């Protein structure tokens, strides 16, 4: 894990005190809401439906047990006993009091956490592969690259007022677990001639105009990495549309001028930036990478697992992934119990997960963009014990990547921008398919729900996507099919007219029926859809 140095500690501490002063001035009436709003947003504090909402950054989704316990402490002391893990690997608290916000940030600072750059038109928290450093299929750990970007982008003066928010994801495996190409910049660490560098994709995003990022450069060596990023951002900062908020994201710029023209601009800018000599020396990368060195794995461990308990065996098959070290595995903790709220965890559950990380996973946890939690490095021999403890805490749902492992944004239950509620739809679908055997028969099926066109719930990237719209004051839901946020990235297509809350659940079921009828050997829902097209689905849903 990265550890703050003196400089990191002092800037975060200074920021907390600065915000405390700003809050005090707001409470004393020395500044108006119009003046205060940008200040609180810079510290992750939104005003939502029921209260203030605080978004806390979890850089590249990595946490240790001390930090996780702190998240539980905040939920308990300042909120209503729970938090909501988000698709950007962060956590949000829904019931924050303005007067408490500085104390919360001070508490977070004690465990090297903050809420800086979790809002506003800046470079947001860098996201990454939740299996980073553990995945059997990765080239290298992408997090040193992400940490370098975090340091470069934190308080970067030139990029604090971009035309619009800016999201970057970094992966280092061919399997994309971070929706990399749906980010403003998506990076994949790749190898060329024995050297690691990045493939750079620019201009992806969701929202009202979803776009898959085109490849802008297939290889940028480490020696040019930050200069190239700087050039990518500078071109955007200069030409991005500040006149129209709906056209301000970099995806619109890249789309309007074309990837080739954007690339040319970046190359020209890069030639200038390179003269500034801002790329760090290799030694600095090595210093950062050392923080992410593999934990001291035991050697000679057996790969055998006792599959005696049938419930355990199902969980093992569904929620446990391959680890690069012999005798180890990656555990996915589903935050999607049937009937629960996707991504929500109680303070007690957060504590349980923190303790499991301390006892079994070299003190590490990850937050996933699918709103689940990962224990990245556990001994296979410990899996039954871990499973038992998870089951005792209501955290052993064996549904990873199944239809009930739903991504859902807060929707109209919490969010002031929403058109419709997302969570109740997720709950009804999970209940309709509550039989785990049925879910497993359907196989991998990524269902994603957003309560409005902002697409925080990634509905464009769902094998099945659902979008909440407002139809004459009532909640209505559009159905999309065929999206993917993985390496086979694609954007979903709307099936046709929308549905009521119950109607959308029926429509989803009909879509799965078509899949079961049409599927060929080995095909997932998405594969069948891609092969047979929209027509049979439409017919079943509207026929």
């Amino acid at each position: 894990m990265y550890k703050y140095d003196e400089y990191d500690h002092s800037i975060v501490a200074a920021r907390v005190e600065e915000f405390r002063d700003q809050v005090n001035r707001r409470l004393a009436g020395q500044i108006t809401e119009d003046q205060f709003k940008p200040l609180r947003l810079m510290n992750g504090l939104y005003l939502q439906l029921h209260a203030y909402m605080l978004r806390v950054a979890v850089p590249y989704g990595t946490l240790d047990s001390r930090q996780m316990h702190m998240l539980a402490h905040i939920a308990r002391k300042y909120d209503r006993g729970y938090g909501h893990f988000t698709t950007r690997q962060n956590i949000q608290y829904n019931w924050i009091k303005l007067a408490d916000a500085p104390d919360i940030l001070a508490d977070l600072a004690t465990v090297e956490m903050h809420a800086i750059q979790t809002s506003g038109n800046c470079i947001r928290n860098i996201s990454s592969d939740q299996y980073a450093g553990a995945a059997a299929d990765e080239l290298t750990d992408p997090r040193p690259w992400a940490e370098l970007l975090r340091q470069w982008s934190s308080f970067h003066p030139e990029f604090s007022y971009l035309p619009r928010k800016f999201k970057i994801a970094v992966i280092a495996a061919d399997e994309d677990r971070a929706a990399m190409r749906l980010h403003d910049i998506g990076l994949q660490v790749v190898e060329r001639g024995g050297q690691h560098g990045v493939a750079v994709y620019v201009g992806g995003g969701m929202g009202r105009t979803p776009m898959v990022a085109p490849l802008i450069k297939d290889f940028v060596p480490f020696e040019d990495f930050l200069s190239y990023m700087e050039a990518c951002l500078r071109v955007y900062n200069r030409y991005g549309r500040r006149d129209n908020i709906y056209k301000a994201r970099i995806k619109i710029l890249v789309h309007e001028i074309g990837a080739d023209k954007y690339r040319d601009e970046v190359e020209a800018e890069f030639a200038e930036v390179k003269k500034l000599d801002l790329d760090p020396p290799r030694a600095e990368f090595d210093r950062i990478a050392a923080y992410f060195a593999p934990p001291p794995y035991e050697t000679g461990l057996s790969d055998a697992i006792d599959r005696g308990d049938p419930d355990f065996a199902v969980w093992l098959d569904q929620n446990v992934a391959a680890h690069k070290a012999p005798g180890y595995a990656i555990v996915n903790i589903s935050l999607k119990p049937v009937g629960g709220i996707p991504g929500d965890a109680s303070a007690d559950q957060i504590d349980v997960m923190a303790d499991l990380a301390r006892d079994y996973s070299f003190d590490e946890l990850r937050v996933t963009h699918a709103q689940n939690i990962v224990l990245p490095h556990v001994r296979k021999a410990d899996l039954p014990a871990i499973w038992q403890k998870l089951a005792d805490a209501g955290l052993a749902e064996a549904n990873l990547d199944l239809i009930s492992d739903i991504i859902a944004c807060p929707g109209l239950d919490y969010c002031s921008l929403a058109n419709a509620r997302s969570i109740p739809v997720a709950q009804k679908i999970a209940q309709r398919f509550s039989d785990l055997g049925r879910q497993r028969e359907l196989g991998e099926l990524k269902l994603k729900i957003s309560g409005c066109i902002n697409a925080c719930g990634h509905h464009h990237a769902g094998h099945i996507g659902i979008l909440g719209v407002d139809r004459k004051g009532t909640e209505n839901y559009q159905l999309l099919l065929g999206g993917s946020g993985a390496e086979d990235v694609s954007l979903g297509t709307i099936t046709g007219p929308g549905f009521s809350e119950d109607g959308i659940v029926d429509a989803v079921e009909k879509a799965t029926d078509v899949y079961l009828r049409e599927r060929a050997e080995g095909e997932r829902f998405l594969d069948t859809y891609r092969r047979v097209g929209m027509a049979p689905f439409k017919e079943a849903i509207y026929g």
Partner: protein
Amino acid sequence: MRILTGNDLVTGDVTWWTGSGWSRHVEDAADVGDQGEAIAQAEEGARRVNAPYVIDAAETADGPRPAHIKDRIRALGPTVRPDLTLKPADPNAGSWVI
């Protein structure tokens, strides 16, 4: 009727203008007629409310009921956490909102 709502500056709680002050209960909301904007401005200036706005509501036997679902959810709390609503464990809470 037209009613005025906002969030409490300090706590963030949803509040409703009662004619003389602010209440967390929408049942207490008063018809502001065409005075909503003026009251909102004065109250915001006095820091008794944050981000106030005027909405349409229907008069019912149980008091004012906001016209839009968003404000009904604000009045009650998240529909998916009945334990956290203003009237916890009210079995009719959900149907009230929808």
